[in-house]
C-alpha cells in the first residue's frame, strides 16, 4: 500500500473492522472459541466446527452489531469456506456507517 493513498487506508481499516466484527460474532456463536485463537485462514466447517445453527447464530450476531437487517437474497447464494470469506461477506453487506 502506498503511503498517502487514502482509499487504500480506508479499505484496510474497513477490513480490520469487518474482521473484528466477525471474530466477535464467531466467539459469541460457537461455545469455547476464543478470539486469540482465530485467524482468517481457518475453515469455518473443518477447523471451527461451524454447523448451520452456528452459522445462523453468527449472522444474528452480525446483524445486531451492524445494525442493519440482513436480507435473505444477499445471504442465500454465499458459500463460505474460511473466516476470510465471512469477513468478505461482512464487508459487502455493511452499511457505510459501519465501515
Amino acid at each position, binding site marked *: 500500500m502506498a503511503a498517502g493513498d487514502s482509499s487504500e487506508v480506508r479499505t484496510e481499516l474497513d477490513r480490520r473492522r469487518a474482521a473484528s466484527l466477525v471474530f466477535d460474532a464467531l466467539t459469541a456463536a460457537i461455545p469455547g472459541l476464543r478470539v486469540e485463537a482465530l485467524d482468517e485462514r481457518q475453515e*469455518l*466447517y473443518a477447523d471451527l466446527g461451524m*454447523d*448451520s*445453527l452456528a452459522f445462523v447464530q453468527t449472522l444474528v450476531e452480525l446483524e445486531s452489531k451492524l445494525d442493519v437487517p440482513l436480507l*435473505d437474497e444477499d445471504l*442465500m*447464494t454465499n458459500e*463460505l469456506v474460511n473466516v476470510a470469506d465471512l469477513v468478505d461477506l461482512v464487508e459487502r453487506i455493511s452499511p457505510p456507517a459501519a465501515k
Partner: protein
Amino acid sequence: MVAAARDPQLPTHWFNILHDRPQYVASAMPRSRLPEEVTRAGHAVQLQQPFSLARQSLNTADRFIPIPGEVLDLYAQYRPTPLRRAVRLEERLGANARIYYKYEGANLTGSHKLNSALAQAYYYSRAGVKHIVTGTAAGQWGTALAYACQVMNLGCTVFMVRATLRQKPIRGEMMRLFGAVVHESPSDLTDVGQRVLKEDPAATGTQAVANGEALELAGEDSESRFAVGSGENSVLLHQTVIGQEAVSQMAVLGEFPDCVVACMGAGSNFGGIALPLLGAAEDSGRSIRLVAVESAACPKLTRGRYLYDLSDALGTTPITRVYSLGSTYVPPPVYAGGLRHHSAGPLASAMYADGSLEAMAIDQLTSFRAGMMFCETEGILPAPESAHAVAGMMDVVSRHPRQGPPLVVLVNISGHGLLDLDAYRRFAAGEIEPVEANETRLSQSLKALEEFNQAIAAAAEAP
C-alpha cells in the same frame, strides 16, 4: 389476488414460545468437539434455510411473529380449521369428560403439514431458491410441500421412506400430481442411500436416511435447498395457528382444556396445538397437562436418552440434545410412518426434560382400534399418526375419576386417514399386530448413542 376472505378467528401472528421460555433455544454441540469427526477440508458453510426463516428458530425477543400477508391469504383458504366436541365418542366411552378435537385434515393435502409448507415455500421463494428437496416419512409433509412448491412456482423433490411409500404408493402419486419428483429412500441416487443399500439391500428406510439423501442432493445444485417438516423451532412456530385457533374457539364455548393430547413424531403437530394452549394457560394462571403420544415401535421419549445425537444420515446438520433412540435405530415398519423418527425435536425434548409435557407410547393395534372408534362416532377417519393421539386421549379419559368434575380434554386430529384405507381394511380383517420396538436393534442403537456421548465428553476434557 385473494381467493378467500380472512376469517376473524384466523390468527395473524405465530405464537413464539421462545419468548416465554428462551431456554428452549436449541444449542448444538460444536463439531470441532466431536470425536473422530471427519473434518472435510474445503467444505463450504451455506444457508439451507433462508435467514429470515432460520432466525425464527432463535428468536427470543418477540412473543408473536407476524404471518406474511401472502401466507395468511393461503391460510384463509382452509383456516380456521374445525373444533368440535366429540359427543358421540363421549357417550360410547361413558367418559366423565368433555372431549374436543381440532381437525387439521380437511385441507387439500390432508394434514397440518401445510401450515409450515406454505410458510417455508414462501420464504424460500422470496430468497431466490428455485427448487426444494426434502425427506418425508408418512408422506404428509412431502404432499404438503409439493403443493406449496407448486403454489410458489418452485421445483420440488421428495425422498420418501421406502416402507411407507410401498404401504401407500398413492401418496407418491399425489405428490407427483403436484409436480414433485418422488424417490423411494434409500435410493441409489446418493452416497447416503447407496451406503444404506450396500449394508442392507432390503432396508425399509428411515426419516434420517431420507433427510440425509435430500440434504446431499440439495448440496449438488446451487439453486436447490433442503427443507424439513418437523423438529425445527421454526416449524413448530408455523403450526401454532392450530392452538391459537383452539384457544379462541374454545373460549366461544366457555371452555378451556385441562389436558391437551397430540401425537409425537418430532413435535410439529404437538407443538402446534400445545404451545399456544400452554401460553394461554400461563397467562390466565391455569394449569394444563400436555400429553405427547408416540409409537410403541419408536418410543423416543418414554425409552430414549436425553443426549446429543445426529438428526440425519448425512450427519452435517446440527448435533443437538434430544430425546433419542439413537440415529442408527431402524424402527419396525408401522403404518404411522410419521412417528418413526428416532428422536424428538430439541424443543419437545427440552419440554419433556423439564416436566412440561408427559409422554406415553401406544402400540399400532390399539391406535387403529381407537381410530376406528373415532371414525364410527365422529365421522372422521384419522391418519394412523392421529389415531395414536385418539388412543392416548382415551387412555387419559379412562383414568379420570368417574365422579366429580368432568375432564375437559382437547385432542389434535392432525390428518385424515383416507390414504390409509388399506391399513384400516387390514385392521378390520384382524391382520394388524401390536408392533413394539425391536429390542435388539434398540439396545444396540442406545449403546452406540451413549458411547458417542461418552466420547464427546472425553474429547471435551482432553487438553
